[in-house]
């Protein structure tokens, strides 16, 4: 097998590649390790847990409505820590830059990273820089790793029958913003990326009630995240189509392009399973934070398997993990 672009697109195809890349016998440092394929690793230290994660970031274009690659590079890692329940402490930053890259752009990127760090009180404490010749990559790649601490780690596999599913805000903004901007679509109304560091919002939610499972719906979108949560937890999830918060502009752009907003990336959202008695309190906590204003209860967990959407016309359909490219299926 040769690696192809589908292998990087998330979903089932990427799983094939991951089965190779996760073939480490040394994969766990005492808590939650690589074998779990969770948002990050957990390493118990005394009565605390260290949370550790890393991510490389490429995005085209590097500046887009609502953000830039720097904000994504910081938010992505902070959010992975936050999804484990971890307070972000320190990040590393490795930049691989192509010869000819504009230093003014680097300045903008760094300033944007700094602003994102400031929002949650984390720091970049170490770094690395490489410059490669033209053609070796397209622009810039930023890798960040981060450590956080938590008393109790939140997994992505802890959904329990009876839990309610909460989305911390609107779905699909980032993916459609990037696509519209990159491909030059005039949609009448600009869609902005939701990229944001979520620790502040998550901290409030964790204090408000019992969150059984949490994940950020990045690559592969909500569809991928909720399926992973359901299958890892061994439960069935029912989503109410009408309850899904989706911006009108996103909905209409998705409808015009034939793209499912549930299958595109988000960079500033969390999906959580919450004990039913705590759901209202968690919801209110989320809504009291600017990044959680549109939070909503979107479904519930039951016994069984699969993720099913109850549609607005009274039908049901599966929400499936996306494959790399959408393939038409209507005869």
């Amino acid at each position, binding site marked *: 097998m040769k690696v192809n672009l589908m292998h990087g697109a998330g979903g*089932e195809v990427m799983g094939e590649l991951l089965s190779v890349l996760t073939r480490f016998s040394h994969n766990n440092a005492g808590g939650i390790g690589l074998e779990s394929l969770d948002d990050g690793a957990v390493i118990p230290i005394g009565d605390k847990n260290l949370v550790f994660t890393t991510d490389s970031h490429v995005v085209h274009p590097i500046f887009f409505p609502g953000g830039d690659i720097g904000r994504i590079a910081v938010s992505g890692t902070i959010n992975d820590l936050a999804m484990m329940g971890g307070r972000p402490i320190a990040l590393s930053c490795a930049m691989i830059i192509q010869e000819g890259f504009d230093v003014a752009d680097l300045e903008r990127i760094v300033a944007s990273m700094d602003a994102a760090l400031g929002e949650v009180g984390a720091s970049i404490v170490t770094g690395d820089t490489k410059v490669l010749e033209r053609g070796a990559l397209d622009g810039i790649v930023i890798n960040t790793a981060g450590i956080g601490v938590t008393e109790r780690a939140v997994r992505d596999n802890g959904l329990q029958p009876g839990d309610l599913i909460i989305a911390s805000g609107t779905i699909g903004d980032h993916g459609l913003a990037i*696509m519209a901007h990159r*491909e*030059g*679509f*005039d*949609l*009448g109304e600009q869609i902005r990326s939701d990229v944001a560091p979520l620790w502040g919002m998550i901290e409030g939610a964790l204090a408000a009630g019992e969150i059984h499972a949490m994940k950020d719906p990045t690559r592969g979108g909500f569809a991928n995240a909720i399926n992973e949560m359901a299958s890892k937890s061994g439960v069935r999830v029912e989503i109410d189509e009408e309850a899904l918060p989706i911006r009108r502009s996103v909905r209409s*752009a998705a*409808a*015009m*392009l*034939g*793209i499912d907003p549930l299958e595109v990336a988000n960079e500033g959202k969390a999906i959580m399973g919450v004990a039913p008695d705590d759901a209202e309190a968690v919801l209110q906590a989320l809504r009291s934070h600017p990044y959680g204003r549109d939070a909503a209860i979107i479904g519930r967990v039951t016994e069984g398997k*699969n993720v*099913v959407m109850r549609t607005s*016309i*009274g*039908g*049901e*359909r*599966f929400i*499936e993990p996306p*494959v790399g*490219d*959408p*393939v*038409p*299926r*209507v*005869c």
Partner: protein
Amino acid sequence: MQNSGTIVIRGIVQGVGFRPFVYALAEKYGISGWVKNLGSRVEIAAAGARFSEFLQAVSTGTPLSVIDSVEVLPLDETPADGFVIRQSATGALDGMIPPDVAVCEECIRDITTPGGRYEGYWATSCVNCGPRYSIIRTLPYDRERTAMEDFPMCGACDAEYTDPASRRHHAQTIACAACGPSLSLLDGGGAAITCTDPISRAAELLDAGKILAIRGIGGFHLSCIEEAAETLKRRLGRTEQPLAVMVPPDAVEHYVVPTEGDREMLQNRIRPIVVIPKCSPTAHTGISPLHTIGVMLPYTGLHHLLFSHLRHDLLVMTSANMPGTPMVTATDEGVARLQGQVDAFLVHDRAIQNRCDDSVMRDGYILRLSRGIAPKRMAIDLGDRCILGVGPELNSTTTIYRNGFAVTSPHVGNVRNPQTLAYLQETVEKIGALLGAEFEVIAHDLHPRFLSTRYAHELAAECGAELVPVQHHRAHIAAATREECVGIAIDGVGYGDDGTVWGGEVFAGASPDLERIAHLECVPMPGGDLATRYPERMLYGILPTGETLDLLSARGWGEIEGGVLARQVERGVNVAMTSSAGRVLDAASALLGICRERTFDGEPAMKLESAAVGGRAEDWNLSFGTDDGCRTLLTSDLLQRAAEAQRAGVNRPDIAASVQHNLARGIATLAVDAAHERGINTVALSGGVAINPAIRGTIHACIRDAGLRFLMSTEYPPGDGCISFGQCVYAAALLDR
């Protein structure tokens, strides 16, 4: 001269009156012994001077039986005097279930004979008629293993059941008003309406324009008179979909113009819905916006009684389901789901064990393989392995091959949601159990995202069967023939070897070596499935010109929408490439302003076909290209030509007819040239587009004129109902290679 033996008769010998038939012959020829039902065979121990006459007579079978083989073994006992029907033996699960059969003439006479004990009884049946598959729980077929178990026979019924001279001797479905299933009428909320005769009261409600849910043999129908059809469609939210109707035999010609073949098909004991041209193409638009109507004759006692009370001579009879989900079968489920959509329910209290929709036929081809045909049993040697074909995703059936027979389920439907997937699963389990199947091979569609593909994977993981993916259009050809041929598969969408979307394909060879040698031009499908729902998108995909955009904007497309569509095609964002024949017809339908949004399967192409009725087709110049070693028909040129004709003011029926005609000519040319080149003399045709008589006719004529043999299956649907069978055939060929 042999005067005794054990006669073993294999085939469909259950539920077809076989044992009483044997009994009657034993009496006639003075034979002593016994007959016993063993699932897929009956065993007869027979001794008597006229043994050979008896043997010959039993070998002819009953009207409903299908005899595969007759074998005579030595008899190792001396039977006692007299002849008896022995208890069926269980265990031999390789039996076959007969399909449901329309009520027979004699039973109708019983129902209408004043003073008779079946007078007015809705569920009257005999050994030659009545439900079978829909009531069977397990085999062998005996009353206690059917839904009739809940209705112990009264004395009078028992007397007939045990009377060798009776037509109901050993008829498992025997029942009368005293002992059998009964009817009741419920109001729109499901509360019982007290009335002496639910049928006559139901007829009154229907005559008054009310909408009724009627529980039939294999599920619920929604029923109303023609005047109420619009209301029904509105309540269902299916304002465009053609509805099937039921009419008494003498009213058929009030509505449609049947051919001789149509008439025979209507009266066939399958009693399918037959799609027939209307008397006037523009009449009865409330029932069907097309130039055809699907018509069926009454096929149960209930239907006959209903019409005897009804003042109208037509009832809409459409399967009751939520959009895209299986037909409702149980009464409580019916009440829960249909509340608010219907004004009353006419229900019976016999369990529907196995759901079964009405079959649909057109021009002798099967459009929907279901009641009266399914489970369909085909004798075919596919080797020793037990194979399951799970079918595609839309218009699906499922097929199980075991021991020389392929058995295809009734229409399962569109496997796109949890309910229909559950129905597919249930169907595989039920028919699998009836056949005693243990799957060694599971064949499925190549499409990675079909739910049926996922199901195949899960099932294979459970039972350890080998998975064989089968490309959709190769399955179409495999279902049509196993011979070497040039195969044309024309339909909507199928996942191709190269990950693009196929649907206008020409193959050469024999399964499993079907080489793709030609196809329709690959054209963009802007937005993927969205282009199927909105055919104007497909039009722009094929003809991405300013003129097309102008046409769309004249039809109300906004500037933003149009701009996004153009940009999408230019940048190739979420644009699939397709060689589908269906999408070309969709685009033509959009070009001509016939259909802008598809609200039911095949709508744009069906409406194009209706629009072409009476049109004069002319031969256009065809242009061909090549693509990766395959010859292609340039469908963009075809549509360009149609657009020019439209701008030149050529009338719509003529353009519609010409598009169909030239698309068909082009595909036929690809096939004929390939056949000549390779010295192959048979051209097989399959795929949903082949149902269109104009397209099929043109292709057939081209092939015949080229001196080649034209082949199209009448055993399986040309559409995707044949795929599960084709998957089995193809998988077997592949594994045998």
